[in-house]
């Protein structure tokens, strides 16, 4: 698995430079600093939901409403949440790496959760998003897409637009 993915990582990286640098940057003026700070503290699961969510995830491993409820809270706790393989600084998959790079290039604050560190989360999300693969990007509580869609939307400018809207809401 690691081998298959390591092959795609350079490919993904080489995708990035040709993308037009969008002159219009996303505005974050609307984001209260306290919220940003709370985001930074967030280790594994959504802000205030914190410890309780971890328990819920464990309890909801069998699926069902508790998992859905927990994930509602997690994706609602931040404007931009990326469920990925590995972490922001050490993505474990070329596709996850690509999306992290895109979000970084747009200078948007985002939270990541490592699905490799939590099997229940990983399985629960597939169902919650009706999406079989990772990464999964959530913007403003809504599923935006996986890697291919995020790349497409980045190229077309739709991602920047969606992020801008989310940050101002």
């Amino acid at each position, binding site marked *: 698995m690691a081998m*298959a993915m390591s092959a795609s990582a350079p490919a993904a990286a080489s995708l990035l430079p040709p993308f037009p640098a969008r002159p219009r940057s996303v505005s974050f003026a609307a984001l209260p600093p306290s919220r940003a700070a709370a985001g930074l503290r967030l280790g594994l699961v959504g802000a205030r939901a914190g410890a309780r969510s971890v328990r819920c995830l464990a309890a909801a491993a069998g699926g069902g409403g508790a998992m859905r409820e927990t994930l509602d809270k997690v994706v609602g706790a931040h404007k931009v949440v990326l469920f990925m393989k590995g972490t922001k600084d050490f993505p474990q998959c070329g596709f996850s790496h690509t999306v992290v790079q895109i979000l970084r290039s747009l200078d948007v604050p985002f939270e990541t959760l490592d699905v490799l560190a939590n099997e229940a989360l990983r399985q629960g999300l597939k169902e919650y998003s*009706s999406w079989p693969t990772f990464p999964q990007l959530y913007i403003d509580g809504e599923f935006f897409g996986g890697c291919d*869609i995020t790349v497409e939307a980045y190229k077309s400018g739709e991602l920047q637009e969606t992020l801008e809207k989310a940050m101002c809401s």
Partner: protein
Amino acid sequence: MGVTKEDVESAIAAALSPSHLVVTDTSGGCGASYEIEVVSEKFEGKRLLERHRLVNTALAPHMAEIHAVSIKKALTPAQAQPQPEPAADKPQA
């Protein structure tokens, strides 16, 4: 055994009756990674996310054995019409 390119093709063909379909095995032989280009009328009026969902649904029975699927193109027949080709590359003086 992993999933073959033919498995992927027939699953998509059955679900989407595509007018154009290219499946490329990018796994280097183990059958775990594919790139897909598909043109189908069923994409008409659907956003990219919904189009990808259709492809994902078609592949659902195989997904457990596939590590990576990359949907490179999901177009409607209208979108797939030959784009005006950039004028034949003339060497710049």
